[in-house]
């Protein structure tokens, strides 16, 4: 009988971009909890996250994400300019069928009470980052993919992010995080991986 993983997984995944292999035959099943991903710049961390998110074509292998599409938050805010933070998050929550009425409360918790109704392009980089990360709480997906989530955050936002992550982990959500700040999170992680030149190894 074929093994059907109940957790999100990549099975023998190869990704080739611009004729260059970025991921080479990666197999990874994510356990519930926090999984940390390290690697030097250009090692393939972002591509691995995007492979889980279904945002890059797989040259080989299979991707499985049970429980609905993951929440992927990349380097950039992924919010539409011209809309406010509240409108952006409400749209994304509504699309997933989540309860959009929580959006305003969540944005207040992230320190955006006065800024949530301003167009997103008028916010600072850090505020846009906060709005983007607030999706962890407004969408509450079983799998959360975070690419360097600590970038651009001040101390208050770091505390808020840690709290949001703790809540997600208590709920049993899986979090795969690419970060250079792994030392601070090592104790919370259930698994740690290093990616090097498109190949993955557990540490």
């Amino acid at each position, binding site marked *: 009988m074929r093994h059907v993983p109940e957790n999100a997984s990549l099975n023998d995944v190869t990704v080739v971009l611009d004729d260059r292999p970025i991921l080479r035959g990666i197999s990874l099943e994510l356990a519930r909890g926090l999984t940390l991903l390290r690697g030097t710049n250009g090692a393939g961390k972002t591509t691995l996250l995007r492979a889980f*998110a279904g945002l890059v074509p797989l040259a080989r292998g299979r991707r499985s994400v049970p429980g609905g599409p993951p929440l*992927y938050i990349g380097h950039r*805010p*992924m919010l539409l300019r*011209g809309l406010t933070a509240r*409108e*952006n998050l409400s749209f994304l929550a509504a*699309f997933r069928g989540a309860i959009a009425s929580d959006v305003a409360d969540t944005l207040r918790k992230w320190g955006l009470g006065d800024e949530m109704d301003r167009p997103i392009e008028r916010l600072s980089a850090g505020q846009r980052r906060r709005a983007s990360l607030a999706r962890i709480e407004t969408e509450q997906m079983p799998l959360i993919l975070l690419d360097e989530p600590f970038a651009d955050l001040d101390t208050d936002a770091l505390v808020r992010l840690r709290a949001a992550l703790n809540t997600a982990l208590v709920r049993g959500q899986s979090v795969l995080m690419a970060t250079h700040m792994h030392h601070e999170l090592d104790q919370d992680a259930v698994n740690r991986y290093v990616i090097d030149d498109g190949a993955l190894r557990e540490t």
Partner: protein
Amino acid sequence: MNAFERALLVAARELAAERRHPDGFVAALTFTGLLVLMESLAFGPGQARQPGVASALFWIAILFAATLIATRSFDRELEDDAIDAILVLDGGREALYAGKVVAIAIVLAIVALAAGALSLVLLDLEVALAGHLVLIGVLGILALAPVIVLATLLALRVRARVALVPILSFPILIPQLVACTQGAAAALTGDAAVALGWTGILAAFALVYGVLGLTIVPAAIE
């Protein structure tokens, strides 16, 4: 939430963004307005008033306006990678396509209305069948928008997409352009049977390209 509701959600998001920053709308409106003005000056009042000439130039202007609106709309999606937040979602690609078609058709309809009114005034056109002309306008826009949006999606990651979108889409749109021009000319001159004939063809084009787009868009975006 079903596929139809998701598409409407994307359309509402698009219209809200366009309302706050109407870059594409203003560019398209300016372009079509100037083209109508230049046409009236270049051809002279006698020739420009001919239904065939006036209709052809109007629809060529609308075609370029559609390109401007669509490319600006997707430029906005690419800023800050906003598009990725939708592409991740189940049914996101189809909703993005359908929602953009609806929203761009609405914006284009407003541009067409303004350009049409300007044409009527500047060229002193007489409209024999106003209802037929409106029908041709609506169906023409619905026949153009799916192809333009599909071409913009295909050229999404290409830096020169402003040039590539017309190159990809205009050859496909020649039959629609002919139908729009002939139908509008017939409505201006009062030939109801011919005008209705072209509306049927435009409706078929809108349906075929709308469905075709929905079918190939998931693979096309990848």
